[in-house]
């Protein structure tokens, strides 16, 4: 078994008095694509926000490559190689596409390297190159998702946390986004993919977890999960 990249240990997070995560355990190993499934309000986004420290955990811990990062600042966590591609893309709408990519490598001092990484992103997403001088807000939903992922690629992360990249996109676009995720994974980036769309997520992932109102209620191989009757009923929509 390869080394553990990310591990959540009885992680708890609350909003005010309401617990959104009630002590979850989750592990992602090097090179994996792991999916975290769950319906609206299950706590998927909260899990990712807690890992990236946008929200502080109130119990348990987040470990990255064996190091406890529960109390690190968000920008430090990014610099360590954990990148969170947030729900809803969160493009900086009044910066250009190019500026969005540049800023995503803020801590990189080497401009030549920055340029190289931008070109690499453009190879993945040629449409971003065509639109590089446009304001981010003018991109279509699919293009914004590409930019959000492209931003994540700018730091050459060890692990990429993706929050519902398929949300609101046409099936054909979802297909190509999933292909890109697979490609990023093949280049050596470990992936934790949050999805409501279990069908496509389980096709891509090697393993999966199912979250329900702040608790992990099922976990296992993607193949096993796809066959699990209750999961099929709840999340595969037929």
């Amino acid at each position, binding site marked *: 078994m390869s080394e553990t990249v990310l591990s959540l240990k009885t992680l708890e997070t609350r909003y005010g008095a309401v617990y959104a995560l009630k002590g979850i355990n989750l592990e992602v190993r090097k090179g994996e694509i792991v999916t975290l499934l769950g319906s609206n309000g299950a706590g998927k986004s909260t899990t990712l926000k807690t890992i*990236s420290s946008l929200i502080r955990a109130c119990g348990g811990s987040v470990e990255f490559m064996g190091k406890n990062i529960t109390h690190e600042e968000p920008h430090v966590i990014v610099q360590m190689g954990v990148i969170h591609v947030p729900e809803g893309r969160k493009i900086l709408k*009044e910066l250009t596409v190019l500026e969005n990519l540049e*800023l995503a490598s803020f801590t990189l001092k080497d401009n030549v390297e920055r340029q190289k990484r931008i070109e690499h992103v453009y190879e993945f997403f040629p449409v971003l190159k065509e639109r590089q001088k446009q304001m981010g807000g003018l991109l279509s939903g699919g293009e914004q998702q590409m930019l959000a992922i492209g931003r994540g690629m700018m730091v050459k992360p060890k692990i990429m946390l993706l929050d519902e990249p398929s949300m609101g996109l046409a099936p054909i676009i979802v297909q190509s986004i999933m292909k890109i995720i697979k490609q990023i994974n093949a280049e050596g980036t470990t992936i934790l993919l949050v999805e409501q769309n279990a069908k496509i997520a389980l096709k891509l992932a090697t393993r999966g977890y199912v979250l329900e109102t702040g608790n992990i209620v099922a976990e296992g191989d993607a193949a096993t999960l796809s066959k699990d009757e209750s999961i099929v009923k709840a999340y595969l929509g037929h």
Partner: protein
Amino acid sequence: MSFQEIFLQQLFNGLLLGSFYGLVALGYSMVYGIIKLLNFAHADIYMVGGFISLAILKFFGGTFLGNAWLGIVTAMILTMIIVGLLGVAIQRVAYRPMFNAPRLSILITALGVSMILYNAVMVITGGEYRAYKTGLGYGGFNMGSVYVTHTQAILIVASMALMLVLHLFITRTMYGKAMRGIALDHDTCRLMGINVNKIIALTFFTGSALAAAAGMMAGVYYGSLHFFMGFVIGIKAFTAAVIGGIGIIPGAMLGGILLGLLESFGTQIPFIGSQWKDVFSFSILILILIFKPTGLLGKKESERM
């Protein structure tokens, strides 16, 4: 004086006044853009900048630097650094603990900081006017038939240069882009690996340094300083920032210069005269806001850089 002379004279006065307003307006606009705070203490930073530059210049008077060009330029750089750091310190001590508190708390904190600053200067100076003497002299040149002193010309050039440098900084450098990014969305910038608090501190440094430069220029131009000198210019610079579109950097410069020009031309309009110049210029500004509530360069939402 001929019409042309009057026009040139007022254009010149307006540009000078307007560039002071613009320099101060930038700080209001940048800080509002990045943390949505109306920094009431900003006008006092301008005033403190004036006094600190005076102290430095007095000290230089006895050294080889003197209080003419060499001394003045050196004093301006030093003043900008010192007051910039003062702005950062105020931000760190007074504002940062309030970032997550309700809007009103930080606003009241800013009022408190303002009072501390001007009361401190009032006590130190005894509340009196202080003469601002320089070794610049009264040399100058004729522009048409209008006499322009070297001091006036350099002040305009210097303030335009500062605005240009700021503009390049904001649009071309990574730090400038980070400022614009943070003005749009703090959390997203955090997820891009940006230390948001550091960039906020940098914004305070920049805004305070520019206001300090303006405070010093005002001292050089008017020849005296007073602890309350920030009050009126504070209101006007804030207005300029709103007119240009608060949070938008070129807007602050545009608003400042526009306000300066309106004021100086306002004094020349028959039956209005200089007592009514503020009424005249503010009426026009209100008209602008009626037709363009987000300011001249503002778009749909007005909160941006």
